[in-house]
């Protein structure tokens, strides 16, 4: 299933999904977003446990309700409450120009993300800007085995390591390393009291194909093989030789077909044999979007970078499958 809309991105309203375990600082960040002078009229959908504590007409309560579209497959679950409430909110779209959705601390972010691609109204009127995940630097280690924590890390485009004032450098670096092992492609920010620059979390355009990947070169250079201390892990694949699109397509669709529910996010920029344009690809579970992007710039390092984030990944198999796609 592709997840692009026929409506140009610029005509659609950007949506930020805010996740994070209980106590990570989501409410503090929401308050900052609502009071910050960023010139945006932001509408916020909070879950029933949220207490934003700001009297704002554009704060709307939602009651998380998961709809299964197809035999309970995780890849087809959506948030029914969001479809209904956003559908109503969009009727007066002139009153706001950015939407932020807070999820409960125990939520799997996938249904929220999928809602914006599966539901045709939301797909054509909104565009997912980024998934922002707050991480409690002080307590995250205690919740490390929680499936929700790992999923929230895995789906993130922006990771805000919050409460930096409460840990020392060594502790922070340890969390950074563990977080990077799960998600090497998210932008990493460090904050105190969720104080982060607004332009780093709103208007990120992380789901636009041309922004497919921003891998930290240093991270790739390490030829990354940390110990995988979580069920959720990532594989960063790099190839200097041109690749074959047909082989890639077959490999990726087989992969998604057999492991879709376990594949959280994939992002990649591909150097294809005989093509002057970059090929960019991203996915959320079984939804894949891929297209030719701009030509490689002169002097740009032409190579393929591909990141797979998922549960119980067979790293060696993935590396072998990827290597077999070299042209």
């Amino acid at each position, binding site marked *: 299933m592709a997840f692009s809309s026929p409506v140009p991105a610029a005509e659609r309203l950007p949506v930020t999904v805010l996740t994070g375990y209980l106590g990570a600082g989501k409410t503090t960040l929401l308050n900052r977003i609502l009071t910050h002078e960023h010139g945006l009229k932001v509408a916020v959908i909070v879950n029933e446990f949220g207490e934003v504590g700001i009297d704002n*007409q554009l704060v*709307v*309560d*939602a*009651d998380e*309700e998961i*709809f*299964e*579209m*197809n035999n309970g497959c995780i890849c087809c679950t959506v948030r*029914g*409450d969001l*479809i*209904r*409430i956003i559908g*109503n909110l969009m*009727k*007066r779209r002139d009153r706001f120009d950015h939407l932020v959705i807070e999820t409960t601390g125990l939520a799997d972010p996938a249904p929220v993300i999928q809602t914006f691609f599966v*539901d*045709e*109204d939301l797909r054509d009127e909104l565009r997912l800007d980024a998934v922002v995940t707050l991480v409690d630097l002080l307590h995250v280690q205690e919740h490390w085995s929680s499936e929700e924590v790992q999923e929230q890390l895995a789906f993130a485009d922006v990771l805000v390591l919050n409460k930096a004032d409460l840990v020392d450098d060594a502790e922070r670096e340890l969390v950074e390393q563990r977080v990077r092992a799960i998600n090497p492609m998210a932008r990493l920010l460090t904050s105190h009291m969720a104080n982060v620059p607004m332009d780093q979390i709103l208007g990120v355009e992380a789901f636009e194909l041309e922004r497919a990947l921003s891998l930290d070169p240093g991270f790739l250079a390490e030829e990354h093989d940390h110990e995988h201390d979580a069920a959720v892990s990532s594989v960063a694949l790099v190839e200097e030789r041109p690749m074959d699109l047909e082989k890639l397509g077959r490999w990726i669709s087989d992969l998604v077909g057999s492991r879709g529910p376990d594949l959280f996010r994939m992002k990649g920029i591909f150097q294809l044999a005989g093509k002057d344009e970059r090929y960019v690809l991203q996915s959320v579970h079984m939804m894949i979007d891929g297209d030719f992007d701009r030509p490689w710039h002169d002097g740009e390092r032409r190579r393929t970078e591909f990141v797979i984030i998922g549960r119980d990944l067979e790293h060696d198999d993935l590396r072998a499958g990827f290597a077999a796609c070299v042209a």
Partner: protein
Amino acid sequence: MAQAPLVSERLCGDLQQPITALAWSADGEFLAIASAGGELLLLDFRAGCEELLRGEHNSSLDVVGFSDDGQFLMAAGQSGELLLWELGGTGVRPLAMDPMALGGGWIDAAAWQPDGLLLAVASGRQVRLWDGALRQWREDPLALPGSVQSLAWSRDGGQLAASCQGELTLWRPAEAPSGEPPLRNSIASAGLALSFSGPGHHLACGLLDRSLLVWPEHCLGQPWQFSGFPAKVRLLAWSDRSGRLAPLLASAAADSVILWTQINQGAKAWRPEPLLCHQRRVSGLAFAPGSTLLASASVDGTVALWNGRGHLLQVLEGQGAGFNNLGWRGDGRHLAAGDAQGRWWLWPVTTPAAERSNARAGGGFKANP
């Protein structure tokens, strides 16, 4: 074949915010129009006046309706409150009753009972009933396993259908609590649209998973299931003119309208006829009362009129803004629609003789262009 146009003049007026809902009173004397800015406008055609019952607010109104006897007007929306006005007839100022907070979040489904005074309101995972005769809430709301997505009364007012994710419940509230318990049907997805036919008492349910269920006469037995729609099935309409078998049914999913004709009783009982005209999402769908003339409104800025065989008779345009909804006056000769700029439109419509059955009560009124 050259045909005289069905529509040659129009009325219009403006609210500040996009129009979210509109409803005619049963006698056709009043038209109520609600907006995303919480405005509520009441047009009184006999007295020739209009009154803004509620000015602009920060919370939208999303559903509006008159009780069958014309005694009450109801509106509800984002605030989760039920607003009621008591109407004293044409020329008399409506009297606002105290708003009633239901505490179930945004209200976008509520419906008055035909031939009765019960008002069903979907609030969160409950269907609450307000009894206009006693002016109080009935005890024992109907509880559903998920947020109520849609409500519909049977045409005789005896049966109420409510749907959520996974369940479609049929209830006879007049008999509650001593009568039969609600009949709960499992459905594969979320029921987004419900509609009972007049003749035959069929029930149709449009689902989020791009399918449509249609129960046979008197809702007995297993439903027919139709799938393969391009999008969720969000709007349904039955003609109230009897067909050879079931009356005509129309469905809307994304930009596609389909006209369904029952041709036999078996497994392949229904013949679908796609009605091609709209370029974007269809937002309103209704047969003219007493007729097989179908109107469909779209956010592409057009309203299309179709005959009972699915032929496009005329396309009406507003001023470029997308239409959000439409509603026929009870006489079947006047069609109202609301658009995304807050403008309401009213067209007198000449229904072709072939689409009419017998003349209905209620005279027309003269529109001033």
